[in-house]
């Protein structure tokens, strides 16, 4: 059981560091509280944003926490993929630059997976393969879907 966990942990650790760097340009890592007996302690998440000191993620800003959480989720996805992902406004607290870099990473990773992202941000909409527009008419929700490939062709 310990080996199974450590194998998964190391795979996630590696991808997490990669994805975090891709979005922020900074460094982040997971850390076992107890190296010898992983199950007697937890897993810390430490982030070092560019130009700053390393800090436990609980001390980071709202946007920084969002980015770290998404990098962690994507790392889990790369180790153990599920058929689809639904992310509801994960970019709500991101500034323009982080929103763009996250959208870029999602576009790239979505080549091998299915990401459904609910968003209000242009940065995300601009990089989607498909845009589902939801609107109300007479108090009832309707949907219109644009396939970006078709639009361009």
């Amino acid at each position, binding site marked *: 059981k310990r080996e199974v*966990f450590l*194998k*998964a942990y190391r795979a996630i650790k590696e991808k997490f560091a990669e994805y975090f760097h891709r979005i922020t340009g900074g460094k982040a890592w*997971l850390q076992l*509280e107890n190296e010898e007996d992983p*199950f007697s*302690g*937890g*897993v*810390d*998440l430490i982030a070092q944003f560019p130009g700053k000191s390393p800090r436990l*993620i*609980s001390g980071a800003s*709202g946007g920084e926490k*969002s980015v770290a*959480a*998404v990098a*962690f*989720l994507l790392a*889990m*996805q790369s*180790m*153990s993929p*599920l*058929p*689809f*992902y*639904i*992310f*509801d*406004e*994960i970019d*709500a607290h991101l500034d323009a630059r982080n929103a763009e870099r996250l959208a870029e990473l*999602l*576009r790239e990773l*979505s080549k091998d*997976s*299915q*990401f*459904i*992202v*609910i*968003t209000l941000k242009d940065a*995300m*909409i601009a*990089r*989607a*393969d*498909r*845009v*589902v*527009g*939801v*609107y*109300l008419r007479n*108090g*009832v*929700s309707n*949907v219109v*879907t644009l396939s970006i490939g078709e639009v361009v062709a």
Partner: protein
Amino acid sequence: MRGFKSFGNQKVSILLGRGLTAITGPNGSGKSNIADAVKLALGELSAKSLRASRFSEIIFDGGGGRRAQRAWVSVQLDNSDRKIPVDADTVTVSREVDVSGESVYRLNGKRISRTALVDTLAMAGISPDGYNIVMQGTVMRLAEVSSEERRKIIEKLV
């Protein structure tokens, strides 16, 4: 979907494919309701997690006598890799909720108990509260979990 939350009495189908799909629109237009529909179809047991105090509240209650008698949602999953132990390239999961809050589940059109459905989908790692569905307003909190909780999230994955 038909009769589900803000989606009225006309059937609404949303084609989602590979790659990146962005869902957008004004506040209150129905975007998060789409996520709720998927959770419902996969066997969600908590009405609260769908922002309702009981399951009958997820039935379309639009004004002007257009209240629906039942809510119906259906999700089509690609099963060409046969991760779901069903011998079909496509697995369609549907759920109908009536005004008493009772649910009827179907797998590829055939009625199935919730337990059987959940066990079948679990073979492919699919569940209504898997880490693959991130609800609105929860992403910051994912970073705020305790270190024990974070370890358990990784444990659950394997």
